[in-house]
């Protein structure tokens, strides 16, 4: 599978980030976040998401590529499959992975977002990197749409609701957000079209 590419803002520039399925080695790297960024929610969530991924892998319920996921679904239409997506950027030399998203494909072919974490303190040229979280969410909507999923949903908390409200353009978000296919397609299309226009403008 080709990585999904979206752009983030780093040091006043628009820079590409690749989103891919994590392999076992990738999950191990993500697990190490806790040591590198101790006492942060992102560090704890990364370690727990990795733990969950290993547990599901022992049960044979994870996928490390889109092709593998498609193959599992072909074999069993009601399969529950977990996968971890990691965002990386070659230009961010200090950190291999910038962010992660732990997702599940449910038995009825819906996508559930369980963990979303951006590595804390990400900087480039001494300035914060922003747009990784919204980029992942938009890429996920595109992925769900391409897989023919009718719904994407997730649980929201007091701290995450405002983020989902902003990116998903749903107001208000309480403890659950649900996005139907038409909306997923529309938001992902608009997000990537906007990025394309911004890139074209920057290249002029």
């Amino acid at each position, binding site marked *: 599978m080709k990585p999904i590419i979206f752009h983030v*803002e780093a040091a006043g520039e628009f820079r590409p980030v690749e989103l891919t399925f994590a392999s076992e080695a990738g999950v191990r790297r993500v697990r190490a976040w806790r040591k590198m960024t101790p006492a*942060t*929610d*992102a560090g704890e*969530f990364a370690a*727990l*998401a990795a*733990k*969950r991924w290993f*547990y599901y892998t022992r049960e044979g319920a994870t996928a490390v590529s889109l092709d593998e996921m498609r193959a599992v679904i072909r074999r069993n239409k009601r399969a529950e499959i977990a996968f971890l997506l990691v965002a990386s950027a070659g230009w961010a030399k200090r950190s291999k992975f910038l*962010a992660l998203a*732990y997702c599940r494909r449910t038995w009825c072919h819906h996508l*559930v*977002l*369980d*963990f*979303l*974490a*951006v590595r*804390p303190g990400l900087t480039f040229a001494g300035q*914060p990197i*922003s*747009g*990784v*979280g*919204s980029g992942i969410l938009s890429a996920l909507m595109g992925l769900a749409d391409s897989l023919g999923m009718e719904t994407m949903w*997730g*649980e*929201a*908390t007091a*701290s*995450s609701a*405002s*983020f989902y409200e*902003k*990116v998903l*353009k749903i*107001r208000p978000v309480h403890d659950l957000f649900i996005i139907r296919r038409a909306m997923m397609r529309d938001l992902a299309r*608009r*997000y990537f*079209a*906007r*990025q394309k226009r*911004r890139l074209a403008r920057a290249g002029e």
Partner: protein
Amino acid sequence: MISPDVILRGRNVGLPGRVNKANFSLVKTPAQKKLTDEEWLRECFEYERTHEIAFASPKALLEARMIAAMDKARRPRRRAGRNGVAPRPKAAAR
């Protein structure tokens, strides 16, 4: 004995009027300003500049913590005796 007529005839005994009658304008919520795609993207980026993005579904978090606890319980404890060190004799009661 005839029961007393509890309904006063000739009087409107329907539901009482609302005490706190609110104007419709007070009920309406302020209209959301429709953002252009450019503004929407800028807002998302601005949000991420000022907030940590670390979110977990409470259910997923609970499950992951249970898995972690199970793993910890299953892992064999390292004891000094397993590393070839003779176990320390118990202190005798005096």
